[in-house]
């Protein structure tokens, strides 16, 4: 049941009706049940079992941590995190580990059979695990009191609009909202519609259209060289942004209708002037998570090694970030690239005094920095999308080679000419809307209806309707 399906619209209508007909004290139960039904519809075996056990371990762990001596707190915190990570490892990463380990053993003992284990749950669990770990850490660090009511805790971790692709919500941001009385104001309804329509537009008009070109190229990169590889790489950078931020907007819009504000996840990431700046703008709830719960503890552990300790902490943090996206070497390599980018940023800065460096950086032409940063990001996305690290290097190595268009126009490759013009119109609207939507969310009713009608018309006229393409981040 995807967000951009009729079945989700019907499901949402029923859940919202039941939610607002239920007395306030019992609404947590409606949210919990809606989440369980939503996950059941996904048809992923073992998903509910995995999420249920993660919720129980983390809820009980946090209750146990509270009001205990420091030694016990630390032990219980560690045990709970290990349990949560074990669930993730078991349901998601075991096949990857088995495959690579047995391939390694096979080198030394060729008579050994190459082992394999099935993937039990492929979606949703990674986001869930990050949330429960942040909850446990915040309770351990005494930033957040442990939730006393399992129902509210489950509603927080499993709230269906945000579970599969985030935003990764902290307990201190979401739990108080679930306890507070929910209200359906005309303002919230309006904001919800803006976000949902804007998300659908980005998904159906931009992302799915770009996918028509990107998918055939990346599924057989060696069949191409030159311009198609170059164009597909740029297109993918736009596709993943439109797709992922589109999902987040829909999630935020749907949450508004339940009286809940989810955390924004993107802030013009391709206008970043450096890689650290990119990570302050891209998948912000994720980057704050990895900074707070991975980078900072590692940085402090390696503090005596000063700058090199920071570099090591960055590389480890981003390698784990890559692996978090899925059990594949392409993601690990993508993470490694960002670890290296960030380390270079740190090392480069360390040669200058910070305060003087700051003044100098302001004088640097911003456009050049944006251009350079964007291209570093595009290069990393190639590995993120490629089917293997080798494919990624093939794309990088052949994108400037003579083009293999074989008499086919680039426009019509994988796209009819009308599709291409739909894409151009969609990209133009996306560009304008990116600056218009945040203002519209803040400023009342001005031009609201014009915007809504434009988006509805654009979605039906320019969108890729009826293909049912899943959201890209759905699989993480």
């Amino acid at each position, binding site marked *: 049941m995807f967000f951009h399906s009729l079945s989700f619209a019907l499901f949402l209508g029923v859940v919202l009706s039941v939610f607002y007909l239920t007395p306030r004290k019992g609404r947590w139960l409606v949210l919990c049940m809606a989440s369980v039904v939503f996950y059941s519809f996904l048809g992923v075996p073992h998903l509910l079992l995995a999420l249920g056990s993660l919720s129980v371990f983390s809820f009980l762990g946090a209750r146990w941590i509270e009001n205990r001596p420091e030694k016990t707190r630390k032990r219980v915190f560690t045990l709970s995190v290990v349990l949560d990570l074990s669930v993730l490892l078991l349901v998601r990463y075991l096949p990857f580990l088995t495959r690579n380990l047995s391939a390694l053993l096979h080198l030394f003992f060729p008579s050994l059979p190459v082992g394999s284990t099935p993937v039990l749950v492929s979606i949703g669990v990674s986001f869930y695990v990050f949330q429960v770990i942040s909850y446990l850490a915040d309770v351990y*660090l005494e930033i957040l009191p442990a939730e006393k009511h399992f129902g509210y805790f489950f509603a927080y971790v499993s709230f269906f609009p945000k579970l599969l692709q985030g935003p990764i919500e902290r307990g201190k941001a979401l739990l108080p909202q679930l306890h507070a009385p929910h209200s359906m104001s005309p303002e919230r309804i309006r904001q919800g519609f803006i976000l949902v329509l804007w998300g659908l537009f980005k998904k159906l008009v931009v992302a799915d259209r770009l996918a028509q070109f990107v998918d055939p190229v990346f599924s057989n990169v060696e069949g191409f060289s030159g311009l198609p590889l170059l164009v597909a790489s740029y297109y993918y950078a736009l596709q993943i942004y439109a797709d992922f931020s589109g999902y987040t907007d829909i999630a935020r819009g749907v949450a508004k209708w339940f009286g809940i504000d989810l955390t924004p996840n993107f802030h013009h990431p391709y206008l970043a002037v450096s890689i650290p700046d990119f990570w302050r703008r891209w998948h912000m709830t994720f980057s704050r998570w990895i900074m707070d719960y991975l980078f*900072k503890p590692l*940085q*402090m552990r390696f503090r005596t090694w*000063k700058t090199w300790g920071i570099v090591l902490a960055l590389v480890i943090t981003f390698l784990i970030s890559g692996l978090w996206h899925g059990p594949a070497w392409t993601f690990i390599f993508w993470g490694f690239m960002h670890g290296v980018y960030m380390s270079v940023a740190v090392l480069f*800065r360390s040669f200058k005094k*910070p*305060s003087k460096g700051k003044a100098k950086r302001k004088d640097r032409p911003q456009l050049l920095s944006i251009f350079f940063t964007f291209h570093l990001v595009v290069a990393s996305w190639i590995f993120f999308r490629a089917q293997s690290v080798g494919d990624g290097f093939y794309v990088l190595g052949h994108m400037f080679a003579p083009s293999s268009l074989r008499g086919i126009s680039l426009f019509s490759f994988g796209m009819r000419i009308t599709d291409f013009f739909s894409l151009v119109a969609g990209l133009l609207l996306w560009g304008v809307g990116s600056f218009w939507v945040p203002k519209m969310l803040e400023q009342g009713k001005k031009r609201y209806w014009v915007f809504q009608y434009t988006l509805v018309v654009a979605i039906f006229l320019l969108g890729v309707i009826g293909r049912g393409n899943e959201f890209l981040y759905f699989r993480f």
Partner: protein
Amino acid sequence: MNPFEKLQAIFQEVFDDPELEISPETTANDVDGWDSLSHVNLILAVETRFHITFSQKELMTFQNVGDLLAAIETKIQPGS
């Protein structure tokens, strides 16, 4: 020199600003150049000058200069 004055001197040295004045409410946002990189230098300088070691948990919970100072004061011997 009391712990606060000593801490202020460390800040001035780490952030290369002899005019820098801190208060218990000062956060990383208030000091030019106080980022992840310089934060490590600051913590190392504090640990060396005060002859103390912070725990991982303490380092994760510092929100402002006041938190840092409170942790220092609980660790140092009177008169040191």
